[in-house]
């Protein structure tokens, strides 16, 4: 009997503008929204790197008053930072928000926009689907290719005092516009290029097999995997390779569109648990857990891995990249070959393959169980295609160590 297609909702209201120098169109976009006093949320490193100057100039040229700049977003942003930014923005009567930076900056900017729009503490809106109306205009300009936050409906920040992760999810959190300018990524160091890119690959692979996957998300994942496999080593090796940077930005955005509509899975749940406990980098931790998470899911989704592997073999047949060899040298079946290809990509990008390589201390059985208990209640795991027990998670942790 033919299987009926699972119901789904695919929502993507973000206007996506891609191209070299597109960031300089930000002034026109702000004006188009009828806004005149944007809050520009960023981090101090980007300010130092000189990325802000031309954007501020572009705003001026479009007749926008000097933006209010908040450049104090840390790599692992938190609620205190959000509240500070909201206070500054409200005092300056800002009427729109621009986020310029990596995932931490963009997620912070999204939550700041909640506080700026409603004028109440943002904690009133912690949770899923708690927003009921549109926010002020928000323009996301990513400077990494990994998180997909520029097209996603979620934002995660921390409460460093209470040691909690705060999740905000709503269709009203989608940015209005995402500006993808590959030139903004040229100065991103190789390590961050690789780790953020592997975060994007994890989005693509996990949402390709997620419980809530759907046909639109499948198409996005496959193209995203192709772009990432084919271009991440290049972008890592030569940051000025604009072709590779462009492919990574688009691949990451497509993976973002997919996971925000289909979910992620066990790899993200474990990465969140370890990131929360040991402060490990999200992209690197995902990269380490990805092959093990795929092996765990293999019995539930081998047909999907098989399909992805065969698709990638076909579309990369004429590739001049070394990545081509990753897809023809496997000795196992197609599904296990895909897992090997992921390992090969991690290795080609110089990303650590074990938890012990990223300074995670040796863990006792009790500590592993505690981490598994955190992972099993992480929202990401509810989308995983195979139900995981505490014992399953402990086993994955042991293997990844």
């Amino acid at each position, binding site marked *: 009997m033919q299987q009926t297609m699972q*119901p789904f909702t695919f929502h993507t209201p973000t206007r996506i503008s891609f191209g070299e120098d597109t960031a300089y169109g930000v002034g026109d976009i702000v004006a188009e929204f009828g806004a005149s006093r944007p809050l520009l949320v960023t981090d101090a490193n980007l300010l130092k790197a000189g990325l802000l100057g031309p954007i501020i100039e572009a705003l001026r040229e479009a007749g926008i008053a000097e933006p209010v700049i908040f450049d104090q977003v840390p790599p692992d942003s938190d609620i205190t930072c959000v509240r500070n930014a909201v206070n500054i923005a409200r005092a300056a009567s800002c009427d729109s928000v621009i986020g310029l930076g990596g995932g931490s900056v963009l997620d912070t900017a999204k939550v700041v926009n909640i506080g700026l729009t409603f004028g109440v503490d943002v904690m009133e809106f912690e949770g899923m689907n708690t927003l009921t109306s549109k926010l002020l205009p928000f323009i996301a300009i990513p400077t990494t290719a990994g998180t997909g936050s520029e097209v996603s409906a979620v934002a995660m920040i921390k409460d460093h005092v209470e040691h909690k992760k705060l999740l905000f999810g709503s269709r009203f959190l989608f940015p209005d516009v995402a500006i993808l300018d590959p030139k903004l990524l040229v100065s991103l160091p190789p390590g961050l290029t690789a780790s953020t890119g592997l975060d994007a690959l994890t989005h693509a692979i996990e949402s390709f097999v997620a*419980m*809530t996957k759907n046909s639109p998300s499948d198409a996005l994942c496959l193209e995203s995997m192709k772009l990432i496999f084919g271009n991440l080593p290049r972008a890592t090796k030569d940051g000025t390779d604009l072709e590779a940077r462009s492919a990574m930005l688009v691949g990451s955005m497509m993976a973002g569109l997919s996971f925000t509509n289909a979910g992620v899975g066990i790899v993200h749940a474990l990465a969140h648990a370890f990131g929360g406990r040991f402060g490990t980098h999200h992209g690197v931790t995902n990269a380490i857990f990805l092959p093990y998470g795929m092996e765990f899911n293999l019995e539930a989704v081998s047909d999907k891995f098989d399909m992805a592997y065969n698709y990638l073999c076909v579309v990369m047949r004429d590739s001049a990249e070394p990545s081509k060899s990753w897809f023809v040298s496997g000795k196992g079946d197609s599904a296990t070959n895909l897992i090997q290809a992921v390992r090969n990509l991690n290795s080609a990008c110089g990303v650590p393959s074990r938890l012990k390589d990223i300074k995670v201390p040796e863990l006792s059985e009790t500590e592993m169980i505690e981490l598994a208990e955190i992972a099993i209640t992480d929202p990401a795991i509810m989308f995983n295609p195979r139900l995981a027990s505490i014992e399953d998670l402990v086993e994955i942790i042991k293997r990844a160590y």
Partner: protein
Amino acid sequence: MGYFANTEELNKVMEILWNKIKEQPDMSQKLIDTKLVVQFKYRDPDGLLTIDCSDGQEMKIIVGATNLKPIIEMSMKADIAHEFWLGKTNIPLAIMSGKIVSKGPTPKALALLPVIQPAYTLYPLVLQEIGKKIA
């Protein structure tokens, strides 16, 4: 027309169900250990139920208005709640499509799901008890 005829019927079903959960130590003790206050807000028809485990000693079931401030607030149509207790709701899909609103710490809300899952078998008994057909 939704499954529940009115607020009275909805509240009655949920109150009986939660009292049955309270009688099952396997479930109730785990809920008490969370020390959470969870509020369920239903619409079509309206309904309000609060489960208060805040003292870590006892599980209190409050039907209707209360001054308690919930830590987790779950809002949904009463029909979604009905399907949930029958084990028919795909929770990830319901959250993705905005059918369930979960206010407060999402991981804590999700941690409750496996705890209350055994109550799926109790729910049809509750409906039977009040003479309502399972639709």
